[in-house]
């Protein structure tokens, strides 16, 4: 067969080396190539194979290299799942035994409604955010768009990743609650059978909705950059206004009183709106648990139909918009931005003047990098903002004498929560710093700078960055709860000890077990070193809280409505508690110091010997 005949027949002729292969007319060459474009089905199976292959390699590598991380994750997930199951079963049992049957139905509907509405909103947001990252920031999209791939195929491929990442937590949180409910109400077998199908169909609805919003919003925002500021401002203002209104009006009755419950129920009735997918899910499960399989299947049908509908809308949106939006996003990334010395930098530079110049310059550099990376500071801001809101509202407990014991307990728990939050931040942001610095070590390594100076600057950066929010938040919490000055002072001492220990641990371990191959700080934090850092941080927090926090509250805090302490109730325990408190208070800074000094020493030694 002649070459031109071969080409016109629609086959790509992979000729042997050195022979001409673009013979024939231009049209016949073009036709022979474009006729080979794969069908949508072939494209789909090719991408499925790609996903399978990547997953297989990642799983194999994780089992081989990060078995500790995998084991800890599996164990913690199992513990969390079991705890949620037991807690939910206990809660449902309590409701079943204490509330009349007709009221129980209403209560369960409200609980399910609130639970699923919350998850629905979280799923929509998380899938939109994840999809934005994977569609517009992921380097492989640049490759895929230059291949003859349908735009909607790239969307479906990336949507699959975003869906998995945003919904696994939902399944982890949702299944124990729903299983516990089924067990308590003695649901029939098909309740358990229909549950996974309902959950999967439901999760697709907010995830697809989030994906559509992501595409349309990015398209609109990139066309009009000012819109983002207006949109964000509106959401923040309305969110704050609604929060203030809700706190001031909804909780006007005495907390936990019957009227309070009635008010809360009335306010939460919107979660059962008939057009909300969360209500369809709730109804599908409740009908199945009430031995109504036909009704349950009808709701499942509604869920599946809507899931497919929203997914298809997402596919059509991507087919029409994605390439254009990607092109616009590329243009947005290349926009130049002039940066200048911010007043915050000047303030920091002035306040750090007692430190050596080199340390000061390195600290300023780290601060600038942090300040200019919205991914980092927005996470910090959101979590600390939520805690501040919580601490401000917690004040209500201190007004009720009945809750004096709670106040004492809550203030201790707040200390532990803030410490755990700080530990996640040191693991997520401080631990990867040395690994990331190692990638740019050709700059720092050529400067007249001792390597330990680099580590000490990171330590001070982390310490200052954790002491201020830790002490500030606990001061706010203690002030709102009205705890005694002695407890407040002890808390501040513990905060400093914990912040120093957590910072030294993250910097030291980060230098001892760096990962120079990984560019993503999130992935570095999720690796073996990061997991170890998180485990040791938890050990430090438990040690300090048990050594000094617990005896402080047992000795000085009130545990009865009348304000009596444990020592007053059981005088024979007072000497023991006093010694425990005294020794623990002295030991806490020592423990914090040790958790900082040992890893720092190990880290400095390893970092000074390291070859780049």
């Amino acid at each position, binding site marked *: 067969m002649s070459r031109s005949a071969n080409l016109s027949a629609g086959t*790509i*002729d*992979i*000729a042997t*080396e*050195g*022979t*001409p*292969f*673009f*013979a024939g007319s*231009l*049209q016949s*060459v*073009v036709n022979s*190539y*474009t006729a*080979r*474009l*794969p069908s949508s089905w*072939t*494209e789909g199976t*090719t991408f499925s*194979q*790609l996903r399978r*292959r*990547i997953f297989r*390699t*990642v799983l194999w*590598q994780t089992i081989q290299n990060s078995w500790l991380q995998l084991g800890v994750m599996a164990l913690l997930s199992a513990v969390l799942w079991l705890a949620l199951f037991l807690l939910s079963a206990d809660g449902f049992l309590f409701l079943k035994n204490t509330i009349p049957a007709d009221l129980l139905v209403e209560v369960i509907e409200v609980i399910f409604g609130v639970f699923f509405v919350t998850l629905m909103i979280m799923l929509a947001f998380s899938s939109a955010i994840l999809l934005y990252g994977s569609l517009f920031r992921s*380097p*492989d999209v*640049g*490759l895929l*768009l*230059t*291949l*003859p*791939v*349908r*735009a909607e195929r790239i969307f479906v491929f990336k949507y699959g990743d975003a869906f998995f990442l945003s919904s696994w937590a939902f399944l982890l949180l949702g299944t124990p609650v729903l299983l516990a409910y089924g067990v308590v109400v003695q649901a029939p077998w098909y309740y358990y059978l229909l549950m996974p199908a309902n959950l999967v169909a439901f999760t697709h609805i907010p995830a697809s909705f989030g994906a559509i919003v992501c595409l349309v919003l990015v398209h609109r925002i990139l066309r009009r950059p000012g819109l983002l500021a207006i949109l964000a401002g509106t959401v923040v203002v309305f969110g704050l206004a609604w929060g203030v209104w809700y706190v001031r009006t909804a909780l006007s009755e005495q907390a936990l009183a019957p009227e309070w419950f009635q008010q809360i129920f009335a306010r939460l009735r919107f979660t059962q709106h008939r057009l909300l997918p969360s209500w369809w899910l709730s109804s599908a499960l409740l009908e199945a648990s009430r031995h109504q399989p036909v009704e349950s299947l009808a709701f499942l049908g509604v869920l599946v139909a809507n899931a497919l509908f929203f997914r298809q809308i997402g596919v059509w949106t991507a087919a029409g918009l994605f*390439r*254009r939006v*990607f*092109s616009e996003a*590329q*243009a947005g990334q*290349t*926009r*130049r931005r002039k940066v200048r010395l911010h007043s915050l930098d000047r303030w920091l530079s002035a306040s750090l003047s007692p430190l050596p110049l080199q340390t000061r310059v390195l600290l300023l550099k780290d601060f600038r990098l942090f300040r200019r990376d919205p991914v980092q500071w927005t996470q910090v801001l959101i979590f600390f903002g939520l805690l501040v809101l919580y601490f401000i509202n917690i004040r209500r407990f201190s007004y009720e004498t009945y809750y004096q014991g709670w106040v004492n307990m809550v203030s201790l728990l707040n200390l532990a929560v803030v410490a755990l939050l700080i530990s996640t931040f040191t693991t997520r942001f401080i631990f990867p710093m040395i690994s990331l610095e190692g990638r740019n070590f050709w700059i720092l390594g050529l400067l007249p700078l001792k390597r330990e100076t680099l580590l000490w600057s990171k330590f001070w950066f982390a310490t200052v960055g954790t002491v201020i929010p830790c002490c500030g938040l606990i001061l706010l919490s203690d002030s709102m709860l009205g705890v005694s000055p002695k407890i407040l002072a002890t808390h501040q001492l513990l905060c400093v000890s914990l912040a120093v220990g957590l910072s030294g641990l993250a910097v030291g371990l980060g230098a001892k077990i760096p990962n120079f*191959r990984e560019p993503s700080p999130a992935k570095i934090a999720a690796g073996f070193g990061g997991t170890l850092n998180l485990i040791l941080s938890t050990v430090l927090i438990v040690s300090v809280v048990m050594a000094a926090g617990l005896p402080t509250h047992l000795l000085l805090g009130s545990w009865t409505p009348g304000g009596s302490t444990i020592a007053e109730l059981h005088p024979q325990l007072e000497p023991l508690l006093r010694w425990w408190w005294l020794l623990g208070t002295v030991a806490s800074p020592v423990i914090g110091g040790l958790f900082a000094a040992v890893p720092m020493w190990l880290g400095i030694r390893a970092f000074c010997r390291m070859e780049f």
Partner: protein
Amino acid sequence: MIDFVHVTRRFGKVVAVNDLCLSIGRGELFAFLGPNGAGKTTTIKMLVGLLQPTAGRVLVGGFDVGQHTRECAQLMGYVPDQPFLYEKLSGREFLEFVAQIRGMSRQETERAIREQAERFELVGFLDDLVETYSHGMRQRTVFAAALLHRPPILVVDEPMVGLDPKSTRMVKDLLCDWARQGGVVFMSIHTLSIAEEIATRIGIIHRGQLLFDGTVEELRRQMAAPDESLESMFLQLTLEERAAQGPVTAREAS
């Protein structure tokens, strides 16, 4: 085969490419030259469909890139300046993925991978994970992926970066062969000696304006500098005062 029809691309107020008109036919090895930030990569990104023009049209094999992106992509093999490879795939798996997306059959895929692996000396590493590859090996793998379906149009952005002298020689021969066999090579390059050595035609862009389009000999004649190297002429041409004069092409002059 490739046509830029009054193509303009703006980034906000910055005009990266201004009213570009350019046609490249079969058998041409076109070297696109220009200083950093001149608009070369923007032009290439518009050609391969990553960016859409603010005005004008880019045609590949008669298809508008903006409207028939898949058809255009099928006609091209693209080697970017910063290539991406899936780290968790082996070289063979990556090449298989690209071949399947291009609609190649199993037999064609196996044969093409074997040929390209031998050509780019990847045989010993093909089943290793990409994350273990050196920069040069990655670059060779990207070349292999771009050539798998023997595209009539080859678009390469800085092709020699990271290649050792032997691979550089091999790539130069390959690009020349490609054009000789009737294919089109659109190449952006900073190494002017290589452009002078292998290109059948050059285009010089500066601040988004196409300053010259023609052969090296035509440039010498136009600049009345019969003994000058391409490097000297390029530096003279891209001086600011010359850029201000606007586009001049040898073809237009002729």
